[in-house]
């Protein structure tokens, strides 16, 4: 079931260490290796650096002295944080949020707390490397998308082989004269399909990766691929980075009020942010849940480390979802070993943005909101008898 689910290749589960890869690819990223690498790359939980202390060696008095001095003086010294730059795309039809064009900034925001999403990738911005490799311009490590594609190709191959096997069996039956009408029908269909498949072989999946299209040549200018991809920040991510961490500047946005009006026009947008902020402030990693039909996915650390543990749907305090919807979601989410979680925001209206003139006011407004967290899971009496 698990390996058969087409969605198990999605961002969330596919990128985790638990992915079931086929031998060849597995070697480059075994579970342990992947985790180790992940630990090296994704050191910071937020794009916010700490004041580090010198090493403490207890039996060396000098070290102890230096440590103490540092400990006492550091908190008083200012650490300036790197400020990333983003813009709002006013031309695209209503894609909310902000875009970070600078590749370095994009990588840092992704690696330090998993903010944003490559506009042409499933998560981490990897389009440039992927495309370069596809067009034979560069090498490097395989990306998530490529691994997934390889697995899908393998499954297609497996299916084709199985079809062939079925065909052989049917032919055998035909020889023995025990073919029933349905089988005969199937045999006919299969044979036709085989012929078609052979004809279409040129266009088949495995071939597609190496084919260069007109669309591709348009991209190459002076032998270099145009950098098409940017990092897209969800409105909630943008506000969190801007207001709470102060590490993001958005072109054309001067005040918090303006920011909130742009990004959270509806009560429901604000409610989503309340929940986002709740989990982020407790150190959890929060990412968009669209792949699972929910608002947020909650990770303990982040996508490279483990699967999301909770799939969160944000509900207004008067929310009454219907049971059908809830059951569909429970199944989707439980199949991926996540808990279906409804987070009720206990006050519905968004605050009056015109009164939020500074960070303190923003915090005050935010602390007026509380949440109630309920998980829903299917219970099967016959499996809970002892």
């Amino acid at each position, binding site marked *: *079931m698990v390996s058969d689910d087409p969605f198990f290749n999605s961002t969330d589960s596919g990128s985790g260490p638990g992915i079931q890869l086929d031998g060849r690819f597995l070697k480059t990223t075994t579970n342990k290796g992947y985790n180790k690498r992940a630990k090296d790359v994704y050191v910071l*939980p*937020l794009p*916010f650096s*700490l*004041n580090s202390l010198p090493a403490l060696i207890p039996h060396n008095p000098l070290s102890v002295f230096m440590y103490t001095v540092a400990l006492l003086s*550091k*908190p*008083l*010294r200012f650490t300036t*944080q790197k400020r990333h730059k983003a813009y709002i795309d006013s031309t695209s039809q209503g894609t909310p949020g902000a875009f970070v064009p600078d590749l370095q900034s994009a990588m840092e925001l992704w690696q330090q707390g998993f903010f944003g999403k490559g506009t042409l990738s499933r998560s981490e911005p990897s389009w440039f490397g992927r495309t370069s490799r596809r067009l034979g311009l560069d090498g490097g490590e395989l990306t998530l998308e490529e691994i997934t594609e390889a697995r899908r190709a393998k499954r297609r191959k497996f299916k084709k082989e199985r079809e062939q096997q079925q065909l052989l069996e049917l032919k055998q039956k035909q020889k023995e004269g025990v073919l*029933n*009408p*349905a089988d005969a029908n199937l045999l006919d269909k299969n044979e036709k399909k085989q012929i078609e498949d052979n004809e279409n072989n040129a266009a088949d999946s495995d071939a597609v990766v190496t084919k260069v299209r007109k669309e591709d040549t348009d991209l190459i200018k002076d032998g270099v691929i145009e950098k098409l991809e940017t990092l897209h920040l969800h409105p909630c991510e943008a506000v969190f980075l801007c*207001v*709470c*961490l*102060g*590490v993001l500047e958005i072109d054309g946005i001067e005040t918090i009020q303006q920011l909130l009006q742009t990004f959270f026009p509806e009560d429901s947008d604000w409610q989503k942010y309340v929940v986002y*902020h709740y*989990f982020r*402030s*407790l*150190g959890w990693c929060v990412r968009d849940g669209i792949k699972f039909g929910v608002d947020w996915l909650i990770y*303990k*650390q982040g996508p490279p480390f483990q699967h999301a*543990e*909770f799939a969160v749907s944000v509900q207004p*305090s008067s929310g*009454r*979802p219907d*049971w059908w919807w*809830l059951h569909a979601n*429970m199944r989707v989410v439980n199949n991926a070993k996540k*808990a279906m*979680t409804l987070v009720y925001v*206990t006050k519905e209206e968004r605050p009056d943005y015109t009164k939020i*003139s*500074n*960070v*303190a006011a923003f*915090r005050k407004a*935010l*602390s007026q909101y*509380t*949440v*109630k*967290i*309920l*998980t*829903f*899971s*299917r*219970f*099967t*009496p*016959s499996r*809970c*008898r*002892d």
Partner: protein
Amino acid sequence: MESDSDDGGQDWTLLGANVLKRGEKDHAPDGTVIQQTQLQKSREVMYTALSEPVVISEKNLVEADWDSVRNIGRVRKQKGTFFMTMGWSEHENVYLYPEEVIYLCQRGSMRCYLNNEPLSVEGVMSICLKYVSTEWYDVYSNFKKLGFIVRRCELETRKVSKAQVSTTQTVPSQKSGRKNDNEIKKIKNELSVYYPPIITRIAWFLLGSRFNSFAWRPSYIVYSTLFKDLTAVKVRQNIDVAPQKERFDFFVYKPGTKFKKSDPPEADYRIRVVSADQVPELNKIEKELQIAQKVGNFYKDPVKRMRLGYRTFIYAVVDNGVISYVKVTETGAPSVY
């Protein structure tokens, strides 16, 4: 595939064999004789099984009278093991709720009389289902068929408060009471509304407009401090209303439970029967949570702790005779740092 194991379409040719074994189903009808024969065979087994008359020896038969004033059944003479877990005693009589009457009659274990005339199963249902809803009966009999002990909560109301107190004590943490207290405090912290320390609040007041982020300190040495400064939204605390007017519909006990009607143990599951149209509103759910089962949650791992939650109960959602059980758990997110 998980999907078909409980979707209601059983292949009746498996009846009596190994019920757990799953039938091989086909993708779609293809007009072949083989499929037709197979289908006809399955159907015949079903029709035959349904047509078999319910026969029981007179010796084991329980008899009861329908009390059409109180709309309950009065047992004539207690027989067999049913009454260890069913019904209740009152003035030396044993009484049964309508769902219990239907269940025993459908099962072929009891005959019910109305004005001294024996009722057929159809007669029993036609009378009893006036006093309990079909959903109510479906849930009751579903658990009974699986061997669970099912009690209406109103029977056990007096015992509830006592049982609830004991939950916190039966938690398998015997190391030390002190640690236990700490853990409870920790959980309470997760639930309580966050009030930043006074110095922080003064700093925000003075510097709030000058520092353009929640990270107001000049620098941080550890992330936990930063996360603490980011905190603004908290879990709403439960308003613990004392009077327990609310009660669940059924208490359910696992099949092996040593059960005594006069002193029922803590139920394994608390069940509320609801119809399939909409999930109850939050304030209704919160009321249920107040009388829900408390969970002794002492996991260190934040994920495990959040998964297990603090209290839990079960909604039995009934959609035209198909029951879906949904476990609701209240929880809060512990800090990861």
